């Protein structure tokens, strides 16, 4: 019931906003999102984490029985955590827009709330069509937010965003329907869109079928992630979106893609994932380095962070296709932590933009002296984004990389490689992805160097904002503190999160048992060649 409430409350409040005077819109929206946070907290408390892999808080209602559709909502720990992230970002986006949004405020807050409902719906849906509907429906509010409240090039950006992701997901729908049909044909023509039931059937598909399904699903989700080379909509959309839009886009919407891969591609097409993981891995790694290097030459700070999202999400996908517990858990952690750090970066850039009306690092910079509070937070979140240990980025990044490293044909001989897992990526993937850490340090520090450090620069004709002080005000600091606290807490004490997602992740990984081919022992890779006489001695030496 809590989940239903979480979905309905923003919708109802969006309706209230429409029918109430303009001035009240932001307060209604604030109230709605804050209450959502409380509900989310209650849901977290009520959730039985000892059964984290099970769907809990199940709500089912008939919907379109003719099609086999159900209004089926439930959460496992991964879904619940992502919902928690969504509701947490809710009030931050709303309150963060108080001074930024000047026109059409009712439309703005109403759609922001609708967007929140849709996102929660995506994570909570346990019916494929319901998932798809929510997944697609996130496009509309985002489309409107970018189109109406973005900057100069907003319409092109919004259209590209909409069409790109819509095109991908229509093909994904075909894949979904194929899975549903396959299930129906297995189960005596009983059509259902129930996720759990579908997964079991889907895994019985032939590898070739799974390959096509994977391709279809990826065309929907990879665009959303976005994975190289289908990422080009993102920098545009991010740059043009209003601050709250960017925060939600980076914080949650991109995660719909990785969540989709985690929730559908991995369990539905395991054999195909094993087969194509190297390819996906290569794309991820190329994306990490490629987007990272592109960040380097950006002068638009928002575009830089946008490209950094492309780079970062590469780690996330890499962890997923590592298909071992560390990698997948790292990836889930990445979904959450990226929401905090990159969301915060976008928020901060928005705060700067409100004051200077430019995003160009050529025009504005050296804010350390005039905006010390802003600068301190900036450095903090940059460090979180760089993956500094002790902050959230590190936990997820190192796990993704470690999962990738582990995911290799490690053959344990004589007790060697107990920490390895079977997989198809391996050290080289980890190494090249790891260079992304260096590149990340490069571009983020260059950004910090220009924005925070150095001599103060302001755009021509700059004058003080009439509502906002030079540095952050209490409202803005209040927005950043929860995010900073999240970064710090998840960085220093990620254990509760890890424990929570352990069971569902292990369940997903369990689908892959026996699927990954055990390679022949390669001379030179695991043991120095020249076995022979020494071998026995070595064996003895081990005891």
């Amino acid at each position, binding site marked *: 019931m809590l989940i239903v409430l979480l979905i309905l409350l923003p919708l109802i409040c969006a309706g209230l906003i429409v029918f109430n005077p303009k001035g009240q819109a932001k307060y209604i929206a604030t109230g709605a999102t804050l209450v959502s946070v409380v509900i989310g907290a209650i849901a977290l408390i009520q959730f039985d984490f000892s059964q984290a892999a099970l769907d809990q808080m199940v709500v089912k209602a*008939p*919907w*379109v*029985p*003719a*099609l*086999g559709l159900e209004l089926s909502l439930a959460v496992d720990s991964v879904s619940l955590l992502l919902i928690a992230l969504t509701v947490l970002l809710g009030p931050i986006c709303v309150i963060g827009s108080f001074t930024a949004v000047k026109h059409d405020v009712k439309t703005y807050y109403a759609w922001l709330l609708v967007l929140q409902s849709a996102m929660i719906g995506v994570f909570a849906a346990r019916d494929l*069509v319901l998932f*798809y*509907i*929510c*997944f*697609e*429906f996130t496009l*509309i509010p985002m489309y*409107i937010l970018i*189109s*109406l409240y973005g900057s100069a090039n907003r*319409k092109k950006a*919004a*259209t590209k965003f*909409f*069409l790109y992701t*819509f*095109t991908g997901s*229509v*093909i994904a*729908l*075909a894949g979904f*329907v*194929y899975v*549903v*049909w*396959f299930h*129906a*044909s*297995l189960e*005596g*023509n009983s*059509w259902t869109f129930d996720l759990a039931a579908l997964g079991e059937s889907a895994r019985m*598909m*032939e590898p*070739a*079928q799974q390959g*096509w399904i994977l391709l279809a699903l990826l065309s929907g989700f990879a665009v959303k992630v976005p994975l190289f080379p289908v990422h080009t909509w993102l920098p545009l959309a991010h740059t043009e979106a209003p601050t709250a839009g960017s925060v939600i886009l980076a914080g949650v919407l991109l995660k719909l893609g990785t969540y989709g891969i985690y929730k559908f591609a991995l369990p539905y097409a395991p054999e195909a994932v094993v087969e194509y993981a190297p390819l996906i891995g290569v794309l991820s790694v190329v994306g990490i380095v490629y987007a990272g290097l592109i960040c380097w030459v950006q002068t638009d700070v928002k575009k830089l962070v946008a490209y950094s999202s492309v780079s970062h999400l590469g780690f996330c996908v890499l962890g997923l296709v590592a298909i071992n517990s560390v990698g997948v858990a790292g990836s889930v952690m990445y979904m959450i932590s990226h929401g905090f750090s990159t969301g915060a970066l976008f928020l901060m850039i928005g705060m700067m933009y409100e004051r200077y009306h430019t995003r160009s690092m050529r025009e504005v910079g050296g804010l350390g002296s005039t905006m010390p509070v802003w600068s301190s937070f900036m450095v903090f979140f940059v460090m979180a984004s760089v993956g500094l240990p002790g902050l959230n980025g590190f936990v997820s990044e190192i796990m993704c990389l470690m999962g990738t490293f582990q995911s290799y044909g490690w053959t344990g001989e004589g007790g060697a490689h107990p920490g390895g897992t079977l997989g198809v990526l391996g050290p080289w993937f980890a190494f090249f992805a790891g260079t992304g850490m260096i590149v990340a340090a490069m571009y983020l520090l260059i950004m910090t160097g220009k924005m925070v450090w150095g001599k103060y620069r302001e755009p021509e004709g700059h004058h003080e904002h009439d509502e906002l002080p030079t540095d952050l005000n209490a409202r803005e600091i209040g927005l950043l503190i929860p995010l900073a606290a999240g970064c710090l807490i998840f960085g220093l004490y990620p254990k509760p999160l890890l424990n929570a997602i352990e069971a569902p992740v292990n369940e997903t990984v369990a689908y892959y048992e026996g699927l990954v081919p055990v390679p022949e022992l390669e001379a030179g890779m695991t043991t120095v060649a020249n076995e022979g006489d020494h071998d026995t001695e070595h064996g003895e030496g081990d005891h």
Partner: protein
Amino acid sequence: MAEKLASLWPEITLFIATCIVMVVGLSPSAAVRRTCGLISGVALAAAGILAIGTADQAKGLMPGLLPYAKAVIAFVGVLLTMLLTGVVDRFEEEAIEKGSAGFDPLRSTRGEFFAFFLFSMTGLMLCASADSLIWLFLALELTSLPTYVMVAMSSPRQKAKEAAVKYFFLGALGAAVFLYGFALLYGGTGSVHLAEIQTAIAAQAAEGSINPIALTGLVIALLGIAFKIAAVPMHFYAADVYQGAASPVAAMLAFVPKTAGFITIILLCAAVGWNHGPMGDQLPEIVRVTLWVMAALTMIVGNVLAWLQSSVKRMLAYSSVAHSGYMLVGVIAGPGDAFTSSGVAAVLFYLLAYGIMNTGAFAVVSALETRQAARTDTGELVHDEADDINAFRGLCRHNPVLGWSMVLCALSLLGFPLTLGFFGKLPLFTAGIDAGEIPLVVVLGINSAIAAFYYLRLVALPLFEHPGDEAEAYVESPNHGRRVVGVVAAGGVLVLTVLASPLMDAAFDASADAPLPVAESEPPGEQTASLD
């Protein structure tokens, strides 16, 4: 005879109303004249109710089809009636009201206009009731012939005449083609009765091969009927005619002949049966290939051409072409033992969805007109319709009702989730995949995406732009029926998603009489051939 009549009460009702309207339209009293639209609407509503009421009397090849099809036709017909009000007589009535002209029964066309409309609707309903090729031919012609006239009289502008010319002559060509196909079909089976054709073809199939003349006739008939549904290769007229005709008439053209065409195609295919082919689960290969090629080309050609248009009516016309392509996928898929696997049911449901959303879109188009009336070269006054897409700029700002109606209808046409369009398209996906037509479903998916490109303009321009000079030149038409239709349609695409299930059940019942394929659920492994 009486038994047969029992199922024809809706048509009879409409026919009687037609006669009444013709007479009433000539009345010197303006108040009485004005009841034409009302009478038509009431008659259509009554016909719809009667259709449901006489459901158990239904006869023919697919008796289940009758009540559903007629009810849908009646419902959309009511919407169309509201749109059509005021198309032909607005200036005439205004002049009479101002006293600048007297009522001249010889020049008044109001009665005829509604009469033609009702004739057409009658023909449409008769299509559904048809049990023989003769009946089918007559019903199709009854549907089409009045629409030719309606196009011509819908607007005093030259382009309406041009549209009428093209529509009429090409329509005659199409009619000749399908008539020739009917003749061959009769020749190949020895009967014009659909039921007997069905038996004959089943017998021929059992003997090994279906008479090639029958198959050729069927293919030619389908190609001829492609004109009615505006499918490739008979789609050329569509854009010109829709653009030339007044929007309410264009709305009607997008629904009425298309429905007639699809009902005919379904009936013909049902007569042939979906139990041929190597697996015994599809149409005879030659028919399937015909429809396949038609479907794929129709979707693609419709969408790519729609993309290029800046005229909303042309865009909607080409999109109507594309929608025919989508529905053909359902026809190819054929019936199934559940709604999800029944392509026929999907088509029938889609017809309803399409009727509502497309009428809604045209309603918004027809509700906008130029602020200043202009004179045509023949001296008649006319408020031109908003045709250029820029007329819709910022519509949500200066006319939220119309603007949002347009946005919702466009989203629904685009097949966006949570609208009726999505629920219409989803069964096409499921049925197509169930029938193993995966390449076609992929084409369908890609085309849905292409469609997004141009429908999105209909969403973006009203929603995000500020009305420029061009848009300022347009105001809402004084005929508020059109606004109502827009709102009803926009509401419908949202509200009916909640009621989708009963409607889908009804559509499934309507398709239930189509001959089921022999082996419905074959082992999945063997279906993979099409995937590999």
